[in-house]
């Protein structure tokens, strides 16, 4: 069910209920009769059907049926009556709707319409009732009378109730509520009068009805004061009251004759109702008219127009507030006067004439006229004068409406002026001016443009692109510029235009646009400036400038110009080169840009002197470049003077003397360096001094020298006077390599390494933290090369900020490297010399031989041994004497000692190297055999003889003994050798036999027990089979033992074939192979890098097989067998390889037994094995000259270590 249906249903119910209740109320006094004089439900029905629409008719029917039943009426008539009661109001409502009934009751017509329609509609109700009740004989005798009563009663019901319900709007009730005091007193009056008239008075003689009219003023009161509602109430109260009183036999209208009485009552009621309603309607109409007048007056008062009304004689009858405001005249000044307009001296008489005509009734005037106010000021008056007519079309007066339009007039005037001004400006412009519309149509061109192009205005206007002043060859470019303008891109455009005579000229085309409110361009304006002349001037100037520029640009001397604020105005390429700033960067910068903080005051003083023209012409000083270098410059400054002799700036010529200066300094440094080198100072002291000196030359640089160790791998600290000690320590001993900072790499690559920024350079990846820690950002390292190009060390310059060397610095570095090389080589040579001197001196003094020098035939120097040998105490006993003085007179061969000695000396001096046996004599006279070597040496130009004398008395004795021993030994060796050979042979054949003959019976044992077990299985019980198993495993073990033993014994015979072995991959390979056999075991190998070894491949492999195999075997009870293989450096540098496991280990007490053949530290049932493996390993290691040992702890794993010296056996 929709809302609408719900509402309709609710209305139907409400209507039915209301109908029933009012019907019952009205029927009460007429109990027993079906006739009522005021059938209020009829009004209720009509009002409801009008307000809610005909759709709620069932409510009427229901209410009527209910009312009928309540009076005990039979079903049939009741239904008929109800149908009539429904049809009647429906007809009335339909009629009212059709004829345009308006329920406001402010028109007489509405009252009449309601009464008429009600009367017509009620005909149906009355007729229906008469017919239905007549059929059941429940009707009074006179049917016509009954019909009449019913009709009248129903009509009265409509007249009384319908207006109340229809007019019952909120506004109506409000107007009653406003006067509620009055309304209450009216109600009391009504009650009193009604009581008095209808209940107290009694008509006795037929004249007493008159007091009934007393009620009429009450109705009038209500109609006048309380509108439609009041009227309705009054009518209802009076009608119902009169009807009740009369029917109950009281009141002035009571008549013995019922007909008369009803007629009288009905007349009374109709009269009251019509009277009330007429008064009410009149009152409503009046109220409405008054309201409109008030509205009109208010509007005229507030409007900003001046409104005047006049009579036919042009006299003013009304002037609104707008007029008095506009003109300053008061109402009193105007009313009754002739004065619609007050013309003044400037008022146009022609216009005034037209106004006059209109005022005289001759048509209308509408126009603007200059009017004057009361105070004499004028204003533009937009005036309308029109005659006023009445309803019949007769002219009754004049209406004038005025408005002040001065402001608009002024604005218009101003606009006209500015347009004129603009036009004259454009016409008088020097530059051309054109106007184009959005289609490109040329709509205007000023005289200057015409003159410029040679075209007349007429020739130009109406042209479309290409315009005649576009040169044919430049049309594309022009079109592009034009399109840009059309798009709103208003950039000035320099192009070539063409005059009418074909002459081309350069011009600047500056466009702009005029847009409408929507932002669309409606016009394009452009100025065109002929720049032919300017171009020519520019060319001349350019030529002159170019020449000057050439000098300015090419000179190697910096040319800088300053304004009076000491700011750069010019800056030539040479200046760019010197200071690093481009002209663009320097322009407008203050001189402090290139002056160090500390020199600002000094430079300022020069500047002031220059401005005061009191000096400053030449100034050598330091400057700062863009990259922060300090350079030394020589300045020549000149004031720039304008034509009035005023200083307007300063021009400076500047030369960079840094390099020259630096070269001087470097020379000084080199000189002092060489001096330092030539002193006795140590290499480190010299290098330190050199670096200190260099740092003085290179402010903010930190210089260092590293020396390459003799091993050619490690860099050692050389000198670094300014580097932090921690840094020096960290670098000292670093191994060179391809990515070891600057120095390590430079030494490794033997090339200069320039790292401008350690933060970003890949070579410093490993040293970045260190550099950061010590605040080092740049490091340029250069290898110092000695003879044959070998690297001696590196020379490095560090900076604390990122920096790259300039060419001059690279040159300087090369020179420093050179000097450093000299220092290193020189000092090393010195050290070497000194060392060798000392060495030789020590050898000389400590030699077991006597060594001495002879000049001619005399001793000039000898060592201590000489003194001992010859039994002397001091050298003086020897020096100055000839050697034959320390000889017996005759030598064993019988020759004279002196003669023989001189002869040999002679021979030696002749260049021969002699070695001979000689018998010497000690100071005490005893002699001894000696072996003498004699050779000539040249020392500083002089020829000397050097002699070595060895006391061979002991050797002589030994020689004799040895000869005897040797003879014996040789014999013995021969015997032993043949023994050994035969033993070896025997051993060999023994092991050969063993390998064959010992195995054959074992195979028989194993084979037959196997066959027994297989083929005769049923003959054996479990024990038998177990024992057979023992036999087989015993035989197999024996076979294994024989194999191992053979391998072991063979080891002694196999020749060694050493080669270089990659131990790492061999260990890995062996592990992989062995671990592969151990499925189900968890084994983890930790293999460290292993140095290579020299050895016999198969044997060394056997070592790994046994050691790793053992490790795997003895870790079998561990969840994860952890095996570590590695190498460490032994005391003498030989690598020690080790295999460590986390296995069963062993008790160190039995360590000695470990490497014996058939020695086992574990029971067979724990770990299988023959006990030969480690013996084999030891044998191999020992044959290679190595050592093997083990460390272990029970259940804590074992470590086997071995060495393999590179030179085996």
């Amino acid at each position, binding site marked *: 069910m929709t809302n609408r249906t719900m509402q309709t249903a609710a209305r139907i119910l409400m209507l039915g209920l209301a109908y029933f209740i009012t019907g019952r109320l009205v029927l009460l006094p007429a109990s027993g009769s079906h006739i009522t004089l005021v059938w209020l439900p009829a009004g209720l029905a009509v009002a409801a059907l009008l307000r809610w629409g005909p759709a709620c008719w069932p409510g009427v029917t229901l209410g009527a049926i209910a009312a009928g039943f309540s009076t005990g009426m039979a079903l049939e008539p009741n239904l008929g009556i109800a149908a009539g009661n429904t049809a009647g109001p429906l007809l009335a409502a339909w009629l009212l709707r059709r004829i345009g009934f308006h329920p406001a009751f402010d028109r007489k017509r509405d009252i009449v319409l309601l009464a008429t329609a009600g009367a017509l509609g009620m005909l149906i109700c009355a007729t229906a009732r008469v017919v239905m009740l007549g059929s059941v004989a429940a009707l009074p005798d006179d049917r016509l009378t009954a019909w009449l009563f019913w009709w009248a009663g129903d009509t009265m019901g409509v007249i009384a109730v319908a207006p109340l319900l229809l007019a019952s709007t909120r506004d109506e009730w409000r107007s009653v509520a406003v006067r509620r005091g009055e309304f209450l007193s009216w109600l009391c009056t009504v009650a009193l009068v009604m009581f008095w008239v209808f209940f107290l008075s009694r008509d006795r003689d037929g004249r007493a009805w008159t007091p009934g009219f007393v009620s009429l003023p009450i109705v009038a009161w209500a109609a006048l004061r309380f509108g439609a509602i009041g009227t309705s109430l009054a009518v209802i109260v009076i009608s119902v009251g009169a009807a009740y009183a009369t029917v109950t036999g009281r009141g002035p209208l009571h008549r013995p004759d019922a007909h008369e009485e009803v007629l009288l009552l009905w007349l009374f009621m109709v009269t009251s109702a019509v009277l009330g309603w007429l008064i009410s309607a009149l009152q409503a109409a009046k109220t409405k008219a008054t309201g409109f007048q008030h509205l009109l007056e208010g509007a005229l008062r507030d409007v900003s127009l001046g409104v005047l009304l006049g009579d036919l004689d042009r006299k003013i009858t009304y002037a609104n507030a707008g007029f008095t405001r506009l003109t300053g005249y008061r109402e009193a000044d105007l009313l009754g006067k002739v004065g619609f307009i007050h013309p003044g001296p400037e008022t146009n008489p022609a216009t005034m004439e037209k106004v006059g005509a209109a005022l005289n009734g001759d048509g209308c005037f509408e126009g603007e006229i200059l009017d004057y106010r009361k105070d004499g000021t004028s204003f533009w008056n937009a005036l309308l004068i029109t005659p006023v007519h009445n309803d019949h079309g007769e002219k009754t007066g004049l209406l004038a409406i005025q408005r002040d339009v001065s402001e608009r007039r002024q604005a218009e005037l101003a606009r006209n002026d500015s347009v004129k001004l603009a036009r004259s400006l454009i016409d008088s412009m020097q530059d051309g001016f054109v106007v184009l519309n959005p289609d490109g149509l040329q709509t205007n061109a000023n005289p200057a443009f015409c003159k410029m192009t040679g075209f007349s205005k007429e020739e130009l206007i109406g042209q479309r692109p290409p315009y005649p002043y576009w040169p044919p060859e430049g049309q594309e470019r022009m079109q592009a510029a034009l399109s840009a303008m059309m798009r709103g891109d208003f950039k000035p455009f320099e192009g070539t235009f063409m005059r009418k005579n074909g002459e081309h000229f350069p011009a600047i085309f500056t466009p702009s646009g005029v847009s409408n409110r929507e932002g669309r361009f409606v016009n394009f304006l452009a100025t065109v400036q002929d720049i032919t002349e300017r171009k020519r001037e520019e060319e001349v100037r350019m030529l002159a400038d170019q020449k000057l520029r050439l000098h300015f640009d090419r000179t190697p001397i910096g040319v800088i110009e300053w304004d009076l604020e000491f700011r750069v105005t010019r800056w030539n390429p040479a200046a760019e080169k010197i200071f690093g700033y481009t002209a663009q960067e320097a322009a407008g910068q203050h001189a402090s840009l290139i002056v160090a903080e500390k020199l600002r005051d000094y430079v300022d003083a020069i500047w002031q002197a220059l401005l005061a023209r009191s000096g400053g012409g030449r100034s050598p000083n330091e400057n700062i470049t863009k990259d922060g270098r300090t350079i030394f410059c020589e300045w020549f400054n000149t004031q720039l003077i304008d034509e009035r002799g005023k200083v307007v700036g300063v021009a400076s010529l500047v030369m960079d003397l840094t390099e020259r200066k630096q070269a001087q300094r470097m020379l000084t440094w080199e000189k002092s360096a060489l001096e330092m080198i030539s002193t006795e100072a140590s290499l480190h002291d010299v290098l330190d001094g050199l670096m200190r000196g260099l740092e003085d030359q290179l402010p903010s640089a930190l210089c260092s020298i590293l020396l390459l160790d003799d091993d050619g791998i490690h860099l050692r600290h050389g000198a670094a006077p300014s580097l932090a000690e921690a840094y020096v320590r960290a670098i000292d001993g670093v191994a060179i390599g391809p990515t070891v900072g600057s120095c390590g790499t430079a030494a490794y690559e033997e090339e200069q390494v320039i790292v401008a920024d350690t933060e970003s350079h890949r070579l410093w990846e490993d040293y970045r933290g260190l550099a950061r820690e010590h605040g080092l950002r740049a490091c340029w390292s250069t290898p110092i090369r000695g003879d044959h190009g070998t690297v001696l060390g590196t020379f490095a310059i560090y900076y604390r900020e990122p920096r790259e060397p300039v060419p001059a610095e690279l040159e300087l570095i090369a020179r420093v490297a050179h000097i450093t090389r000299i220092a290193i080589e020189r000092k090393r040579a010195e050290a070497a010399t000194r060392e060798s001197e000392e060495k030789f001196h020590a050898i000389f003094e400590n030699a077991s031989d006597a060594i001495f020098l002879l000049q001619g035939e005399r001793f000039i120097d000898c060592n201590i041994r000489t003194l001992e040998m010859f039994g002397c105490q001091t050298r003086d006993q020897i020096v100055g004497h000839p050697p034959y003085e320390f000889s017996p007179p005759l030598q064993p061969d019988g020759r004279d000692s002196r003669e023989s000695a001189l002869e040999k000396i002679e021979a030696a001096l002749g260049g021969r190297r002699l070695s001979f046996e000689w018998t010497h004599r000690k100071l005490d006279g005893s002699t001894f055999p000696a072996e003498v070597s004699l050779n000539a040496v040249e020392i500083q130009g002089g020829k000397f003889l050097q002699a070595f004398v060895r006391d061979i008395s002991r050797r002589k004795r030994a020689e004799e003994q040895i000869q005897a021993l040797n003879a014996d030994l040789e014999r013995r060796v021969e015997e032993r050798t043949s023994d050994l050979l035969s033993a070896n042979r025997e051993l060999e054949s023994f092991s050969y036999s063993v390998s*064959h003959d010992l*195995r*054959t019976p074992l*195979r028989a044992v*194993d*084979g*037959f027990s196997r066959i027994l077990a297989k083929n005769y299985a049923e003959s054996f019980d479990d024990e038998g089979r177990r024992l057979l198993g023992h036999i087989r495993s015993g035989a197999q073990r024996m*076979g294994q033992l*024989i194999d191992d033993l*053979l391998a072991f014994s063979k080891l002694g015979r196999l020749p060694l074939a050493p080669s270089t072995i990659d131990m790492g991959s061999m260990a890995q390979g062996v592990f992989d192979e062995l671990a592969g056999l151990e499925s189900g075991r968890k084994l983890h190998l930790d293999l460290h890098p292993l140095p290579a070894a020299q050895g016999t491949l198969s044997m060394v492999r056997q070592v790994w097989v046994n050691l790793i195999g053992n490790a795997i075997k003895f870790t079998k009870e561990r969840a994860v067998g952890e095996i570590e293989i590695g190498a460490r450096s032994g005391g003498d540098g030989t690598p020690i390889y080790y295999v460590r496991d986390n296995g069963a280990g062993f008790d160190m007490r039995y360590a000695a037994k470990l490497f014996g053949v058939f020695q086992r530290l574990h029971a067979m049932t724990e770990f299988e094995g023959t006990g030969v493996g480690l013996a084999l390993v030891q044998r191999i290691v020992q044959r290679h000259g190595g050592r093997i040992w083990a460390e272990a702890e029970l259940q804590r794993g074992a470590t086997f270590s071995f060495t393999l010296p590179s030179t085996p056996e």
Partner: protein
Amino acid sequence: MNKPLEILLVEDTPHDAELAIHALKERDLANSLQHVIDGQAALDFLFCTGSYQGRNPHDQPKVVFLDLKLPKVDGIEVLRRLRADERTRLLPIVLLTSSREERDVKAAYDLGANSFIVKPVDFEGFSDAIGSVGQYWLRLNETPSRK
């Protein structure tokens, strides 16, 4: 002998001989096997001399299992003589030995032995080795016909 000869086993050790024959039997390879106990007997057999005079010289074995250590003439010598003779130059000869001596192996191959088997102590291994080799020479290998 109704079947053509397949194997000549030259083995002095009776145990080894029996085991070898057992192993071959297990693989059904010993149906036609001649066993001699020294090098001389082997040579006599193959060259149809001595006690084997009158043997059909065309009835040669498909393979000879020759022990290295033999009384009288040892295996290497037997091999040398067989290879030297035109009639037996191509005869497949498998050397059996207990030794792993490198020089034996080298000598055997130098003289043209077709295989060299080290007899393991373990019978399974021994049986496998003998069996596989017999299988190979008797069943798989094609020998040049001797006409």
